[in-house]
């Protein structure tokens, strides 16, 4: 049966659909690893970007933990369904850098899209981590943090210590912890991220190598060196301190945060990014200060290195989509956006302009201690070969190995020398495996 009105209506709808599709904003997908409060901040950034222009729509998707997000991105790439932007954590940097066919270096992306980009606008300690040996910036730093010392003000007062003068050196930490334990606390201090803080950052802070070849920056034929006498002395001291509960092991990653928030431990070394959850959860005041160091080491303290993650651009998309990514990166680098991200989280601002803006707004006067991470990262510029950062392949595996060996040391099954030697040997095997896949 012939129905002209219906035919015209359907044709009109189809044509209208085609026309509107052609005018629709280009979609850009961003896979990230921030849940909870941080996830809300990420969503706010995405919404603000979408509201600021109408050519591109940024879709931010939470994919799970850092490891899960990276694995999802890799699996998607193998299936041809990769997102435009993938957030990859610091330990995955070497793997991403080695995957030349899978990524587009950020510097190239910005140049091709015609968006102005100046690597010198970024804090050297942050940008250097994600820069290739030839000086090209490969990924866009997003959330960078560095370890600080948190001190429980209430515990300090009970122990007769001055909370405005937290311990600066490891011997002072030991003394303070003893007094805190004597005041009735079940734990003097604990740590999160034992590999990142007590070995990796420990090396940079004391200007000693964690591995050869400039911590892996200069080549894949690197070997680990974190079983040096200084490292062994430090780890053995922590292990011995367990006896009197001066140091108590809190668990892997940042599972030990509960020990500090609950008031069990008087001091705690953790990422500056822990600030948000401590502020929300702790029923006591706390202060932040520099990471402690051994005073008898020449050149200490040098500077700390970052942890966190950066945004990588995946290959295989259209020029239009890449232009959208470039516009988003330009938006992300604006001082206003950086300041918002920095003020609401414990992450550091990645551009000098953003830091200057925070100083002008008197943010650090109103919030004392919030500038400690930035000052730690930019102490004694420029960073040395030992304090630029780390670049090791298969580093997720290596971290797991380090956790296992450190746990054997904390349990008293091995001495620090034995545990660190074993970790170095097993870690080197992983480095050789990675080296073979890069040939």
């Amino acid at each position: 049966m012939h129905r002209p009105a219906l035919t015209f209506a359907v044709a009109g709808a189809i044509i209208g659909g085609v026309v509107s599709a052609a005018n629709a904003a280009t979609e850009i997908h961003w896979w990230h690893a921030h849940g909870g409060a941080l996830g809300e901040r990420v969503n706010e950034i995405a919404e603000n970007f979408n509201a600021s222009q109408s050519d591109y729509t940024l879709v931010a998707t939470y994919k799970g933990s850092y490891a899960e997000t990276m694995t999802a991105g890799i699996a998607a790439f193998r299936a041809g369904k990769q997102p435009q932007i993938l957030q990859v954590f610091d330990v995955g940097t070497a793997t991403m850098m080695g995957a030349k066919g899978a990524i587009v270096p950020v510097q190239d992306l910005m140049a091709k899209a015609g968006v102005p980009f100046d690597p010198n606008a970024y804090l050297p300690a942050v940008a250097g981590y994600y820069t290739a040996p030839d000086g090209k910036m490969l990924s866009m730093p997003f959330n960078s943090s560095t370890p600080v010392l948190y001190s429980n003000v209430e515990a300090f007062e009970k122990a007769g210590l001055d909370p405005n003068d937290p311990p600066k050196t490891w011997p002072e930490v030991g003394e303070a912890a003893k007094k805190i334990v004597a005041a009735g606390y079940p734990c003097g201090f604990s740590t999160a991220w034992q590999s990142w803080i007590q070995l990796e950052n420990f090396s940079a802070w004391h200007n000693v190598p964690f591995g050869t070849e400039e911590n892996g920056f200069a080549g894949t034929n690197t070997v680990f060196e974190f079983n040096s006498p200084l490292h062994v002395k430090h780890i053995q001291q922590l292990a011995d301190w367990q006896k009197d509960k001066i140091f108590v092991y809190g668990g892997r990653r940042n599972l030990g945060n509960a020990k500090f928030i609950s008031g069990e431990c008087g001091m705690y070394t953790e990422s500056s990014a822990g600030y948000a959850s401590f502020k929300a959860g702790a029923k006591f005041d706390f202060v932040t200060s520099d990471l402690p160091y051994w005073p008898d080491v020449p050149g200490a303290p040098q500077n700390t290195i970052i942890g966190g993650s950066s945004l990588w651009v995946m290959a295989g998309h259209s020029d239009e989509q890449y232009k959208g990514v470039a516009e988003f990166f330009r938006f992300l680098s604006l001082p206003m956006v950086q300041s918002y991200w920095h003020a609401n989280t414990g992450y550091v601002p990645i551009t000098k302009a953003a830091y200057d803006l925070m100083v002008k707004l008197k943010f650090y006067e109103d919030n004392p201690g919030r500038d400690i991470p930035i000052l730690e990262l930019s102490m004694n510029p420029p960073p040395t070969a030992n304090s630029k950062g780390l670049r090791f392949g298969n580093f997720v595996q290596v971290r797991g190995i380090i956790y296992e060996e450190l746990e054997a040391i904390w349990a008293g099954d091995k001495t620090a020398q034995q545990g660190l030697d074993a970790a170095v040997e097993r870690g080197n095997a992983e480095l050789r495996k990675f080296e073979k896949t890069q040939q």
Partner: protein
Amino acid sequence: MEKRVVFRHPVLPFLLVAPQIAITLIFFMWPASQALYQSVLREDAFGLNTEFVWLENFGDLFRDPQYLNSLHVTAVFSISVAVSALAVALYLAVQADRVIHGATAYKTLLIWPYAVAPAVAGVLWLFLFNPNLGIIVYALNTLGYRWNHALDGEQAMALVIISAAWKQISYNFLFFLAGMQAIPKSLIEAAAIDGAGPARRFWTIVFPLLTPTTFFLIVINVVYAFFDTFGIIHQVTEGGPAGATNILVYKVYHDGFLGLDLGGSAAQSVVLMTIVIALTVVQFRYIERKVHY
């Protein structure tokens, strides 16, 4: 006397079996063949740089002390879980069989844990045994025993064995109970008249007649302990501390998905598959002979 079902239509049997075959092909054969293929390759995470390396991945595996540790841990774990789950379930089934008042209530409650997902079961026991907050830890502390499974490998192993066995007890209980219902009461009464006590009656009559059920459950429990306990390990210990609970299936996940070593992980999968097939074949060959049907 053998009963045979005869289909008149020649193609119908194949059509009826086809869905199951399709599922086996897609969800087992295809991934297994992928694993076999990947186990002889060495590649980077993105698959951009692939190299055929014959059996090098397998060689690396058996030279790796961590892998040998994992084999040992898996053996201890599987045997402990299977034995404890079967023994406790058998005991509960025997007791539940004798109950008259409120029998249904006991049976229902004893079956509930089976409905709990492995990861959730892991989290439940993690809370009970949390070194800072757990109730059981509090009770142990009053007895003077310090519990910290994040540091002590044996305690971690005990915790995952308890969590894994707890879940499986319900399943075993159900089958044992059903198996016991099938034993003719006349046999037991005859033995009682002849003067056999309850223990004697159990070991000489009930237990031998339960062997088909026990055999079936041993196979199921071993496969469960090897594979379905992944959720518990992942939630409770993540293979730690220091590899004390790093069972084979968890190591496959850790090396493949976190370590991005696809060749090594695939080789581990192949070895794991071979082990379980071998175990099942052994069970069917040797233990089935002892089963009284």
